[in-house]
């Protein structure tokens, strides 16, 4: 198996505070890695740094994506290379129809990769196909991006984009937050349909619940900016029993 994402000894600061203190993680193609841990352990920071969100300072370490130095790339270059972040709180963009947004983004990525823009009929065909597969009503695409969407609709819109852009690395940041059990199942089904031997997933969550639906290959426990334990999917169940307190002590 070849490595898709390699994070080596990553140290990250926000203003004067170090959040990640030398984090190491390798995700191979075809794998689903779950990252669990209490609030403030640095899970979301990790996802933001991989995607290139401004405001974080990397003081040490490296992130390689398919062997390339990810930290040297602008966030939009990373997206075009195949890094996708499904947001915990997807933003609303009033006045910009979802369909227009999807098309602008898809073509921006294609352009960055030196590919031709997708023609309107081809694009519409593809959107229709993805919507059918994910059971998303196309009416949703006429509305402004996430404007007035329910929590479930926002998350489904993230999955829709994931399916449309076909990234090789998908990072799901607390996809379960704010979702009821039915909405969670629908979103998880969408993600499972995208699992292929070429694609890797990093699933960030507090709770084991999501992992009943998206079954991981590897589970990592994060505490105080480090991976403190890794194991198989049974580790998640173990955590559900015993809680995070044991790791808090270890890290301290």
């Amino acid at each position, binding site marked *: 198996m070849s490595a898709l994402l390699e994070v080596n000894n990553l140290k990250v600061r926000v203003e004067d505070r170090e959040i990640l203190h030398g984090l190491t993680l390798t995700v191979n193609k075809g794998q689903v890695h779950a990252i669990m841990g209490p609030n403030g352990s640095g899970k979301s920071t990790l996802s933001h740094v991989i995607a290139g969100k401004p*405001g974080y300072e990397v003081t040490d370490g490296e992130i390689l994506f398919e062997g390339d130095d990810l930290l040297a790339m602008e966030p939009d270059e990373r997206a075009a290379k195949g890094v996708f972040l499904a*947001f915990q709180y997807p933003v609303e963009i009033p006045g910009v129809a979802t369909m227009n947004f999807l098309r602008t983004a898809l073509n921006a990525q294609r352009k960055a990769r030196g590919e031709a823009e997708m023609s309107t009929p081809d694009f519409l065909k593809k959107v229709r196909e993805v919507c059918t597969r994910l059971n998303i009503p196309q009416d949703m695409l006429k509305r402004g991006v996430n404007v007035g969407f329910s929590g479930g609709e926002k998350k489904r819109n993230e999955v829709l*984009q994931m399916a449309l*852009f076909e990234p090789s690395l998908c990072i799901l940041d607390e996809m379960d937050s704010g979702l009821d059990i039915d909405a969670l199942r629908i979103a998880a089904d969408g993600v499972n349909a995208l699992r292929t031997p070429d694609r890797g997933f990093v699933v960030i969550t507090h709770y084991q619940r999501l992992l009943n639906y998206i079954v991981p290959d590897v589970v990592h426990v994060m505490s105080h900016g480090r991976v403190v334990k890794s194991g198989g999917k049974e580790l998640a169940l173990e955590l559900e029993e015993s809680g995070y307190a044991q790791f808090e002590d270890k890290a301290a």
Partner: protein
Amino acid sequence: MPAVQETVDRVRQIDVDQYRYGFETLIESEKAPKGLDEDTVRFISAKKDEPAWMLEWRLEAFRRWQTMAEPTWARVDYPKIDYQDLYYYAAPKQTKALASLDEVDPEILRTYEKLGISLREQEILAGVVRPDGEGAPEERRVAVDAVFDSVSVATTFQAELKKAGVIFMPISHAIREHPELVQKYLGSVVPTSDNFFATLNSAVFSDGSFVYVPPGVRCPMELSTYFRINEKNTGQFERTLIIADKGAYVSYLEGCTAPQRDENQLHAAVVELIAHDDAEIKYSTVQNWYPGNSEGQGGIYNFVTKRGDCRGRNSKISWTQVETGSAITWKYPSCILRGDNSRGEFYSIAISNGYQQVDSGTKMIHLGKNTTSRVISKGIAAGKSQNTYRGLISAHRKATGARNFTACDSLLIGDKCGAHTVPYVEAKNSSALFEHEATTSKISEDVLFYCVQRGLSQEEAVGLVVNGFVKDVLQQLPMEFAVEAQKLISISLEGSVG
């Protein structure tokens, strides 16, 4: 580095003016001597071969102007203008009247070509296909009147408009050819005594467009005027007069550019619209005068008085403006809702970047019964600019059933700019119903990050968010203008985000 800091730095570094129309055309021109006195007014009037009544009208305005003081209430700050240090008349040199387009100086035609305006009818005839695809594709044609410095150089489609009974010509010609119409309407909406800049305009206006649409006629094409200031130290004072007689309809577009210069240039136009019973006038502007450079030097001072009079019952006047240029903008396109059931609309996008200062808005004066008005204003401030919406909504004692809806949204890009909203509301009868909504927001870093995470560059992301923000107003523009305006908005904001 946080994005806000980067934005600020970037704005500081780059030359904010991405102005594409900053070329100068070298042609011989004829100017009035510098400065302003009665002789200047007489000179202009004589140049235009005007009748005595017109000269008297100008002189009266000039005498009144001498007693007036420049207004200072707007939120704009600029060095004192020396009105004696300006040229009040500049015309491309030519000795005889033009019989056809072929006689226009080819340099001027080239200038308009550079601006993307083709005065040649055959090229316009090749025009845009209607996008709505109703029936057979129909040619969309636009009749153009082009004003270069102070003089109108060509008006296209005269013959066809004449067949429909529509008069569309330079106002200097209308004064000679249709004196009865001009005398009846000129100054009837914006009187010579109206305000400092309008009074100055009344004294020295050199040209502009005149439109008369007779009763029951729907003007068969869009009418358009392009204004360009070329000469140095020259004020441009256009005067536009549009009359829609009973049941008539006309849509009029105005576009403006100027060369890039270090000095400030003065522009003080007056536009008067008159809509009789059941008539409708739609007036759209894309203003792209030179905004000045990244240090705030140069640029146009734009002091404009635009007012429409819904004189008849069920009449309607709609102003749509996209303001991206000028160093100073002082502009309040207004509607006097005199006729019962008349309606006024104001849709505005005002973008300021660099050191631009915009003080713009509207006045809706409800006088007739059951009059309605709607105001949608979108202000976008970037760089170190200041962007103010100033609006007055008033209902007269007898204006029973007056209704207004105002929505005023401001968007800030970066943290060195300002957005201000100054609404005045006066309801003098208890049946008036006025609604005012206002929001101010910043383009949040989270929204920008979301977009770039999906593959858009920073600038594409800003363009997308801003175009979403102004969508309600863009929809009001005629199709071909909307596309142009959308591009202009992106260009105006280039480099506003790091």
